[in-house]
């Protein structure tokens, strides 16, 4: 029975590793400037965690194989070095991993969160509400109108609560149901929630950030490949959570300018 356990554990461990090694379902190709650092971090962690996982499972299998079913006449043995060396090994091994990944690897986090956005970044406001994303561009004046929650009227398509009668800056604001951005230019996304918590997740962009009601956040990124990508909500927001999505359209600068112009004319 012990040997059967050992073989089962070994088979499970190896089978578990195969889809990862063969990369059956890995992340899609990255389309951002910061994503490579995250991917490297993920890759490195996969190595270290994978080796630890396989080593621990196989050692478990080996010892159970070797020592299960031994009787009273078999000599008891102690692990060479005893607890002391195992503790030292844990500190050295895990300590090194923590230093390698935890400390040095924080650079990837820093590039997303600690660097200020570029001055010439395209600023877009994203608003999340049950169960849709809307995006707002400041228009030719470069200024966003001030949103007023009491003016929000979905029936009249006033998703942001703009007040063009009294607020000059809001008159040329462009509101869209998709996020169009120019390729290879930094985008500074201002994030606002209309009602409850939501989240903005684009796999290819390696960006995920919560929308927090009452707390306006910003996240910036540069997309490096034109195309259409799915934006999904990853913070449980109610019954339509699964269906809350929008598209990110990464356009060439010319296409983006044209898109803005067309939207502006509507």
């Amino acid at each position, binding site marked *: 029975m012990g040997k059967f356990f050992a073989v089962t554990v070994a088979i499970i461990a190896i089978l578990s590793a195969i889809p990862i090694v063969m990369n059956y379902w890995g992340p899609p190709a990255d389309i951002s400037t910061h994503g490579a650092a995250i991917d490297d971090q993920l890759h490195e*962690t996969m190595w270290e965690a994978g080796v630890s996982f396989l080593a621990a499972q196989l050692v478990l299998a080996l010892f159970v194989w070797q020592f299960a079913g031994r009787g009273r006449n078999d000599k008891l043995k102690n692990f060479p070095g*005893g607890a002391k060396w195992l503790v030292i090994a844990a500190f050295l091994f895990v300590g090194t991993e923590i230093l390698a990944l935890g400390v040095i690897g924080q650079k990837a986090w820093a590039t997303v969160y600690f660097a200020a956005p570029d001055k010439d970044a395209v600023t877009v406001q994203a608003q999340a509400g*049950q169960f849709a994303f809307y995006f707002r561009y400041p228009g030719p004046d470069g200024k966003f109108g001030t949103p007023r929650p009491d003016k929000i009227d979905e029936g009249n398509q006033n998703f942001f609560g703009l007040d063009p009668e009294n607020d000059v800056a809001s008159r040329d604001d462009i509101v869209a149901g998709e996020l169009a951005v120019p390729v290879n230019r930094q985008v500074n996304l201002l994030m606002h929630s209309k009602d409850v918590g939501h989240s903005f997740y684009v796999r290819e962009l*390696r960006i995920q950030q919560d929308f927090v009601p009452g707390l306006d956040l910003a996240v910036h990124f540069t997309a490096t490949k034109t195309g259409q990508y799915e934006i999904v909500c990853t913070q449980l927001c109610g019954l339509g959570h699964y269906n809350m999505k929008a598209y990110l359209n990464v356009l060439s600068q010319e296409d983006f300018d044209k898109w803005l112009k067309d939207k502006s004319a509507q």
Partner: protein
Amino acid sequence: MSEAAAHHGPPQGFIRKYVFSLDHKIIGLQYYGLALVAVFVGMFLSWLMRFHLVWPNAAIPGLQLLSKVGAPGGLITPEYYLSLLTMHGTLMVFFVLTNAPFAAFGNYFLPIQIGAEDMAFPRFNMMSFWTTFVAFVVLLAAFVVPDGPPISGWTAYAPLSAIGKDAGPGLDMGQNLWGISIAIFCIASLLGSLNFIATTLDLRAKGMTLMRMPLSTWAWFVTSCIALLAFAVLLPACLLLVLDRVAGTSFFVPAGLVVSDHLQPHSGGSPLLWQHLFWFFGHPEVYIAILPAMGIVSHILINSMRKPLLSHKVVIGSMMAIGFLSYMVWGHHMFLSGMNPFSALVFSFPTLMITIPATVLTLIWLGSLYGSRLQITAASLFALGFISMFVSGGVSGFFLAQPSIDIYLHATYFVVGHFHLVMGVAAIFGVFAGTYFWMPKMTGRMMNETLGKIHFWLSFVGAYCIFMPFHYLGLAGNVRRYSSFVDDFMAPLMPVHKFITIAALCTGAAQLIFLYNLIHSRFWGPPAPVNPWNATSLEWTVPSPPPWNNFGGVHPVVYHDPYQYSVEGAKEDFIMQNSPEQVKTTVRS
């Protein structure tokens, strides 16, 4: 022994003996029974969810009886899916993972293992169970109120959970019941953990020094210290949430929210405050579930290996280190929540650090297996399975502890796979190991070993088939808490989901073997001897099942460290803790 041990005489009559009992053993069995009901309900809910995910258009006959609105014609609506998800998580985390390894086994065996006649406060003990029971009834009542159970998940993030019915179905009375139930549960856990701490510190038998306590008792003791601090924070958090909902306060709701076209009458609250309070409890809760399992597994492995672990002190120290660090890491649930990104780094570091005591424990278990005389029983198989699951669930924590990787993996099935393996399956394996090991003591009847082993193989392979693929889904970016995968990129992942669902249905069905074994052996199993496993700790010195005052009025005296196995020169290959037999001690420090 202190005077406090014998506050009550032998119970008279059925009600005092089995219902409102002061006896810690009956209370332990009551907790076990409650957890057993909760785990089957919770598992059934997960079946419904898995079924709906892969066969959304197939009606489940009779489900409309559970909820006409939530499952019209037996088809689960997206909102009812979220109700099931919320109830599954809440039942499993609170009523199974907190109750079974900690409250049930702890209640039954902690006093006996330290040589006490009962808990320090038997009336508190009775109250803590019945309060838990009330919490359970209040939670289940959410199934029958008109708008159904809440849809905000077991984490109940505000403001979704705080603003009432405008935010969606289940968020009216259902969410109120949830908040009240969890608040009541917190009171029960506070009573219970205080009792455990007082009992451990005050009621140890003569000679039972702290270092002579078995590792299971050590684990329950450390867990009760964690639980005391954790539930003391969740309790006010739940009360504030209920106040936001029913009294118009705004602790967790900021101004200017427009929900279902209604401007909400709140201002000045913070959704992040709820997250901080919740996870200040929520992360230690993981260790409330897993530490008792670590103790139980260590206790059983030592008995099966016929030799103590490489170091008693290092295991205790590691458990304490895990308990201590568990309070410094809650922010890792909130890396992307909008809190200051610097704090993500601060929370990341102790999270990674917690890997060190966890690795020490794993290496001690593995190193102790070396050169042992390991006996394979249903109990030891589950204990070995625990180690395997703990490693598998643990290594994925190394990814999620890093904020930069969290940007990609947060809120995906990778997280679901991680916590199900490490806190769900591993802790439940600890409970199964404990059940096969201790049930003979608790009922006086042996369980069927063959059925136990079959149960192990199906559960072990089955749990891997369910939860390992979750990690692959997460790596592909499959978002969790979706009732249906409508996004283009998730469609190709459906075969993986089908595989998981089939594995879940089979593995769940295999648990009926366990249920059968448990019930059958309770009534018709062969009578259990006093010490069927040739074990050394005090619970094996008393009859199976023990009398109401455990040691029959005799105060045990302890002469030995807890795990005197394979002692050279001893009459048998083990020495009971209370045996006056003198031999050269072999326990390594």
